[in-house]
């Protein structure tokens, strides 16, 4: 479950980044769309980091050890 959530969050981040690239190429700096897309990207990234920490704290995932 935790893995699924983490990967889904990562996918959403990649999609929002892709959306920002599209606006960068198309909008010629005139609209707010790229700024909005990267804001979503950053918010999701912070959420993912928090999700990782919570998943570790709850014992759902463990970092690699050897």
């Amino acid at each position, binding site marked *: 479950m935790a893995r699924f959530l983490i990967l889904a969050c990562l996918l959403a981040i990649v999609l929002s980044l892709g959306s920002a690239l599209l606006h*960068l190429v198309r909008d010629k700096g005139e609209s707010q769309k790229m700024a909005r897309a990267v804001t979503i990207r950053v918010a999701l990234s912070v959420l993912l980091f928090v999700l*990782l920490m919570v998943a570790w704290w709850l014992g759902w995932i463990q970092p*690699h050890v050897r």
Partner: protein
Amino acid sequence: MAHAPTSTASEKYYVPHGSPWPIVGSMALFTTVGGAALWLNHVHAGPWVLTLGLLLLTTMFVGWFGVVIRESESRLYNEAVDRSFRMGMMWFIFSEVMFFAGFFGALLYARQFSVPWLGGEGTKLLTKVIRGDNFEAAWPTNGPGNIGGDFDVIPAFGLPAINTAILLTSGVTITIAHHAMKAGNRRLLNIFLAATFLLGFLFVYLQAHEYMEAYTEHNLKLTSGIYGSTFFPLTAFHGFHVTVGALMLAVVWFRCLKGHFTPTHHFAFEGAAWYWHFVDVVWLGLFIFVYWL
């Protein structure tokens, strides 16, 4: 044949004439790669030739980009040139995505396929029988041969987690700078843009520290089998990209201080900012797949 009507300067697609930078760039690349080849063949002059090539390359970048900035500020570029810059950025990013896809692909292949096969998974049981050892597939590993000797991985909660927090913070600061640019708030823009590239350089410094720790305390080296030879190239190339991104943002910052850009014309800022978001997301992927999952 009818002649096209004479157009004004702003309608023409600006093409510079007599620029020395393309030939300087070619010579710089030839010298750099030649120097590297000489070095690999143990020719004494190799490192010096390589250094000369890198110096030439730096001169070319500074000179050429300086010319482009002056041309842009002189309003020599029209909408078609602007479109070319944006398309160029898109293809550059495409090549970057493919570059990292190769490295992440190597990691995926090693972890999900080749290492389990060596451990006898699926139809590869015979491989394990013929090898005749007791190699148990588990990640992280340096393979059945224990190549490079015993090693420890770098704990995710040490420098990697701190560096993740640093890059995430820089993602927030560049976004604040972006909104400030759009709103025409130059003071906020300058402060948060400076914070972004300083955080980037801090990340690179800590990454270098992490490598020293890996070599001296964990015996984790580039030669530590499949783990070492995927861990170091992935993280080092990412670190190189952070360095390039931070340099790009630093140049944009100096341009902001000089009063360049407007709320509607700031492609250099947007290009560098998007690149920063890209290296940030690549790091998130690295942090998750190298240290956690």
